[in-house]
């Protein structure tokens, strides 16, 4: 493009636009930055007025997040000197660590259910997307639209029969139950996105492979899959983020063994009300992976969030 192009914005308007966008970006980051800061505050600093930006950082919130603590008598404390750095932090409040909290377990549940459902959605979704993309399937358009329309149901509406069904089948509060449920919800997204990615792979590659004596399945496995790798990876991240963030089903259908982190984090309670530094610490650990994935995904973001309706 020539530097005299009439469509190129002037320097001044670029500067003006840039300033406004940066100001917005900084303002919109404040709540997220505040979560991360609060995680390193002491409970007293967290609720001080005016809100503190500068404070002495402490890992108290993180220690409280991962442990349960009990208050002890002076004699007991004197007889048992603190062993580790986290013991010492807790000692300031005349407490000792009684054991691990449930956060680790809940986080692990999020990982298992997230990855399990993502793997299943991608596995089934890739096969279905390939079939929709390459073969004539009767009523394909109706089927695809139908797959999409299942996302219009409010999650609570879906949860009523699922709750009854899982109770009958013994799937309530199990990892398998949640993996199947999230796969059922995610598969529509996976099929739509993957079909878009596979549609973009030229047919000629497969035809050449078929003429060379590959079977249809070999052509799919050795030619199409490698070509679709980027698309599959970004679809997988979208499925993972959805399962990771999901709250409504998790809060209604799990209570113990299979409970994920989102319903758990708001219930973290310290002495005398909510322990905000611990909540913030939990939120930070939980949100950071998604932030990193979002940055990795930025090129395909638009496509994922619009079900492939908008492709850049």
């Amino acid at each position, binding site marked *: 493009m020539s530097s005299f192009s009439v469509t190129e914005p002037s320097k001044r308007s670029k*500067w003006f*636009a*840039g300033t406004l966008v940066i100001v*917005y970006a900084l303002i*919109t*980051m404040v709540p*997220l930055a*505040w979560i991360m800061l*609060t995680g390193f505050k002491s409970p007293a600093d*967290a609720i001080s*007025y005016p*809100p503190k930006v500068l404070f002495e950082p402490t890992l108290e919130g993180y220690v409280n997040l991962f442990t349960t603590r009990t208050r002890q008598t002076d004699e007991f404390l004197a007889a048992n000197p603190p062993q580790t750095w986290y013991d010492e932090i807790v000692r300031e409040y005349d407490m000792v660590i009684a054991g691990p909290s449930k956060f680790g377990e809940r986080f692990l549940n999020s990982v298992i259910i997230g990855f399990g459902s993502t793997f299943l959605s991608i596995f089934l979704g890739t*096969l*279905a997307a390939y*079939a929709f993309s390459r073969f004539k399937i009767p009523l394909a358009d109706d*089927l695809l639209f139908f797959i999409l*329309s299942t*996302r*219009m*149901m*409010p*999650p*609570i*509406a*879906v*949860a*009523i*029969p*699922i*709750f*009854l069904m899982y109770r009958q089948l013994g799937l309530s509060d199990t990892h398998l139950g949640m993996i199947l*449920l999230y796969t*059922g919800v995610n*598969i529509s997204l996976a*099929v739509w996105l993957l079909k878009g990615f596979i549609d973009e792979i030229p047919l000629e590659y497969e035809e050449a492979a*078929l003429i060379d004596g590959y*079977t*249809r*399945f*070999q052509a799919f496995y050795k030619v199409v899959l490698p070509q679709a790798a980027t698309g599959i990876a970004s679809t997988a991240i979208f499925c993972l983020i959805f399962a990771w*963030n999901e*709250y*409504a089903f998790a*809060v209604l259908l799990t209570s113990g063994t299979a409970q994920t982190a989102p319903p758990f*984090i*708001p219930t973290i309670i310290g002495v005398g009300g909510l322990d*905000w530094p611990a909540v913030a610490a*939990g*939120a930070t650990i939980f*949100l950071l992976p*998604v932030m990193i994935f*979002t*940055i990795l995904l*930025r090129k395909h*973001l*638009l496509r994922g*969030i*619009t079900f492939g*309706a*908008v492709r850049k």
Partner: protein
Amino acid sequence: MTDTPATRAAQATPVGVARKIKGLSDRAIAWIFVGPTIFLLLAINIFPLIWTINLSFTNFRANRPNREVDYVGLRNYERILTDSDIWLNMQATAHFLFWTIFFQVLIGFTLAYLINKKFKGNDLWTTIIVLPMMLSPAVVGNFWKFLYQPQIGLFNYVVAFLSGKDPSSFEMLGSVQLAPWSIVIVDTWMWTPFVMLICLAGLRSIPDYIYEAAEVDRASKLRQFFTITIPMVLPFLMLAVLFRGIENFKMFDLVVQLTGGGPGSTTELTSINLKREAFEKWRTGYASAYAIILFVTVFGLASIYVKALNKVKER
């Protein structure tokens, strides 16, 4: 090579058919590939939907599974549609929908327009702006509750600092007037980037030569904005509104964490109300009818909207 019927048949078989015999036929593969997905959708989406429809005609209560279930016909539907409390929930939902979409379109489009000026580093800032929408609404909503605390919360502090009011003089989540706006603010913070991204795609899809032609015709910048930019971005903007509309009609996690529907029922959106009926009052039959009504409403509105969208696209 001997001339047997088998070898003759083999030579006469076209390559395509030979290929099919070697592996499975395309048709079989198609069904093997699509089958599991269809099965899963039937099990997780369709079967439950049919079950919900069935339940909606009964007085079943999930907390008393052994009680005899009576079919009550359309009575559940009748009671819901004539219940004035549910109309209040619908109004709360409409307020939420209207204002979140209004602010998100306004701010989202403005941001996209500014980013499209292609200043240095616009990619980096776009990525930063996008972050909130990818995060868990429940976890973020829970933390916003902290920001909204009257005495200690950052939000109240900033508003008080800017307006000179006492930070403990207003409660965003506790007051009947402010609570509906508190959820609009958080949703707007979270989802404006979504509208922005779609608008940005729209703006970038407009080819430069259209503006160049307009420039040759000496159309003013303002005129170009209203006759080129807006109409060309409109289909994208409408798509963004469709997505936000459907999502916010289903809104549950963010609001339930922020206000839990309160104070009173001022922010009790239909999804939260439905959860109360189904999982707190355990009126399963009634809640099923409610769910079906909501589904039909979203589906109906979305279908009409998509028709309008397609008309705009055709122009």
